[in-house]
């Protein structure tokens, strides 16, 4: 395990290499790839730099200064690493680490942040976005307002309205950009075209009617001024919101009913009677999501049984696959048995088939009324394999056993064969019975090598989303819970459902659940790895 060499050019080693060593390293480097390698390196770095510069320009124009700065800094570091003669380990680690940091470490931290917000359906933007969205959704046409001749124009898929105001001036605006004066080409009194935008022809106007009627171009920066909308693509009318936004007081007033909705710090305008105007906006809610998850009775109940089932599922899956795999490994480890190769190939087929397919196939076979198992194996019985809370759990375990035993079989076979033959011979000479040889000598040795894999297998099954989701979809559904959770849901499938299915998506709560799972997994892993000390080998 320790047949490694010490590389003289190491990243942070403080001691300076001697002049001779440096020269040797330089010669080696020069000999390494020569001009061709250098060219490739320059080309790659140039590509990286070009992409980085492009990214920084785009981000800067979007005024995302922080992100732009981060991109720039990373690009500089990458250049520094690859132009340096010293940072050898960094050269090999950098590409993977960049992806690791962005898509594992950063999203982990970000998950932590989301868990403390009310992010989700109705709360997925800033306050300004919520205000304009509320105003836009309550627009009503103003009676007797002037008619504005308009031309629909397009720029890279974004529709805009080219408006001629009663004074004959041309204005251009989109959903996001309020009307602003432009130099337009006039056809009589009506502005018909403008540079940089494509004027929609009649046919296009007809095919994109839905998009065009959904356009609401703000009249000005102040949402209270209303917006222009066109029902037909040729003339627009002024629409005013029946909500009035008072920025100073931070209140929304419904002009029809006179109800005042104010910002009381819950991320939505709320009336005195507690009625909320949605969409609201995203705020940091502190530990609310965690408190809700564990104290709200309708949420805490599911959390407890889902957690218990997750542990049961993972433990039983590991145990059942391991024992079946071990048993088979022992059975087929007999040299006298012919045809072992064929048995092995056939038995590892379940492992070779993508598990999402197997789970879907099993779901079909276990169908209560039409499935193969009920119809053929049980002669037409209607056993609710997937719809009864208890049987569904059994089915999930059975299918997971089917999916998982080949892996354990392979692993145990390998581990058994690596146990020296002499141990068995010595024990037999000493008069040990086969069972004793196995129990007292082989099993402990086997466990030493297999234990880390059992832990890994536990961790895998702890988050084994596919089997649960494809087979039962977590069902049967628990109708008492306010979130779409079922009796075979494990924690990870519950997170997915809370975040991405159903009418309301609750990213905050889902992230809080994720954090809870993080903590559980971390505690288990620390304990487990302490016990096996498998990391001892690293030095």
């Amino acid at each position, binding site marked *: 395990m320790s047949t490694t060499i010490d590389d003289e050019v190491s990243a942070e080693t403080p001691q300076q290499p001697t002049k001779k060593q440096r020269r040797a390293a330089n010669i080696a480097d020069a000999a390494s790839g020569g001009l061709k390698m250098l060219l490739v390196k320059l080309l790659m770095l140039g590509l990286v730099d070009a992409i980085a510069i492009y990214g920084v320009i785009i981000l800067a124009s979007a005024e995302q200064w922080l992100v732009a700065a981060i991109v720039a800094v990373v690009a500089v570091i990458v250049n520094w690493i690859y132009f340096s003669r010293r940072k050898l380990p960094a050269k090999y680690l950098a590409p993977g680490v960049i992806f690791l940091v962005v898509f594992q470490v950063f999203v982990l931290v970000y998950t932590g942040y989301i868990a403390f917000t009310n992010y989700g359906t109705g709360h997925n933007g800033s306050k300004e976005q919520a205000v304009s969205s509320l105003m836009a959704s309550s627009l009503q046409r103003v009676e007797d307002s002037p008619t504005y001749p308009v031309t629909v124009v397009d720029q890279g898929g974004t529709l805009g309205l080219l408006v001629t105001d009663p004074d004959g001036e041309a204005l251009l605006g989109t959903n996001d950009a309020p009307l602003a004066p432009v130099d337009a080409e006039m056809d009589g009194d009506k502005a018909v075209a403008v540079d940089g935008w494509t004027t929609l022809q009649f046919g296009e106007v007809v095919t994109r009617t839905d998009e065009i009627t959904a356009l609401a171009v703000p009249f000005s920066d102040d949402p209270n001024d209303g917006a222009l909308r066109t029902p037909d693509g040729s003339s627009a009318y002024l629409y005013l919101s029946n909500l009035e936004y008072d920025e100073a007081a931070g209140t929304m007033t419904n002009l029809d009913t006179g109800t005042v909705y104010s910002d009381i710090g819950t991320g939505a305008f709320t009336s005195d009677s507690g009625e909320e105007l949605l969409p609201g906006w995203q705020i940091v809610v502190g530990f609310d999501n965690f408190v809700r998850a564990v104290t709200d009775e309708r949420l805490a109940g599911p959390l407890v049984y889902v957690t218990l089932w997750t542990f049961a599922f993972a433990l039983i899956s590991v145990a059942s696959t391991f024992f079946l795999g071990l048993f088979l490994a022992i059975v087929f480890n*007999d040299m006298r048995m012919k045809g072992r190769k064929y048995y092995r190939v056939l038995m590892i087929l379940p492992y070779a088939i993508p598990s*999402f397919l197997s789970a879907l196939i099993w779901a079909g076979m276990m169908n209560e009324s039409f499935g193969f198992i009920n119809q053929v194996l049980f002669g037409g019985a209607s056993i609710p394999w997937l719809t009864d809370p208890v049987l569904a759990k059994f089915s999930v375990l059975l299918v997971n056993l089917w999916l998982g035993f080949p892996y354990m079989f*392979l692993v145990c076979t390998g581990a058994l064969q690596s146990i020296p033959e002499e141990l*068995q011979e010595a024990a037999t000479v000493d008069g040990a019975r086969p069972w004793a040889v196995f129990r007292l000598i082989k099993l402990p040795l086997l466990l030493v090598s297999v234990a880390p894999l059992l832990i890994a297998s536990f961790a895998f099954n702890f988050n084994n989303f596919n089997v649960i989701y*494809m087979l039962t979809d977590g069902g049967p559904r628990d109708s008492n819970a306010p979130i779409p959770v079922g009796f075979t849901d494990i924690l990870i499938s519950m997170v*997915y459902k809370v975040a991405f299915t159903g009418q309301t998506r609750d990213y905050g709560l889902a992230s809080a659940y994720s954090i809870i799972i993080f903590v559980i997994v971390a505690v288990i892993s620390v304990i487990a790895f302490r016990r096996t000390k498998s990391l001892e080998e690293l030095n």
Partner: protein
Amino acid sequence: MAAQQPVPGTQTGLVIGEAEEFADASTRASVSIARDGRGGGAGRELPRKPFNFRRWFFATGWRHVVGVVMVVFSLFPIVFVISSSLNPHGTLTGSNALFSAIGLDSYVRILTDPQVPFLTWFGNTLMIAGITAVLTVFLGALAAYSFSRMRFTGRRFGLISIVVVQMFPQLLAVVAIFLLMSAIGDWFPAIGLNTHIGLIMVYLGGALGVNTYLMYGFFNTVPASIDEAAKIDGAGHARIFFTIILRLVAPILAVVALLSFIASVNEFVVASVLLIDTDKQTLAVGLTKLVSNPRYADWSAFSAGAVIAALPVVALFLFLQKYIVGGLTAGAVK
């Protein structure tokens, strides 16, 4: 049915009968027996004992019973799906009579159904999983090389933190990934939400992980003297890595590539969240949504799709089987 099955085994029983003096029949025979058996045939004629079924059964016959039972357990879902895929016009119920009708109609249906862009899904899956596998192996091998061959401050910390970070699977952070990718999509639509590049990048976040660890173990088994010899001959680190080490560790690269390929083919959560358009989706997302759609009742067509989808993976698996077993075992006995 088990009793008739071990026909090839009977042969075994006869051959093995030569070495029957070993009393502990139920335990695994030592290597020496196999060697004896092989050598015996070539050189001297061993006295043959008459075939004794009882003795044969307790030595190896019962193993065939276990084997047959397990093969039936392993294969019957596979047989079922192959049978129903060959059923020309089958619902779920219609598929229960195994091999009652044979035809390739359902394959034609799944490939041509305008509602189901199966081939697009298939292509997407192969492309995403393939590119991810190649890049994962490359990034992982780079990291494993530096961990295995260089000594630097933070090396141990790096190795441990890779293992630790991997304990939190990406699917737990799927909400954050979704929001991150939709933010990226606002600025760079080409690599953000609903793009294959975006999905591949997310998958590459896991490139350093268990895979690196597997490779690291294997890299360590390649003697460092090879590097040193190459260095003396004037090779630099890049040449050593690309032209020497990568060839010597090819088996583990194959294993990691395959494991990564299968993992991406199987991946549902991130793909279902990031890929919105039906035409962009992968098989896992598309087929799952298809089957869970109550209006879709063409089980035969789905089965045909499943068979087509499983074929390349199974073929790769069987082709690389030797390496996979070796790789898993190397992991097991490290």
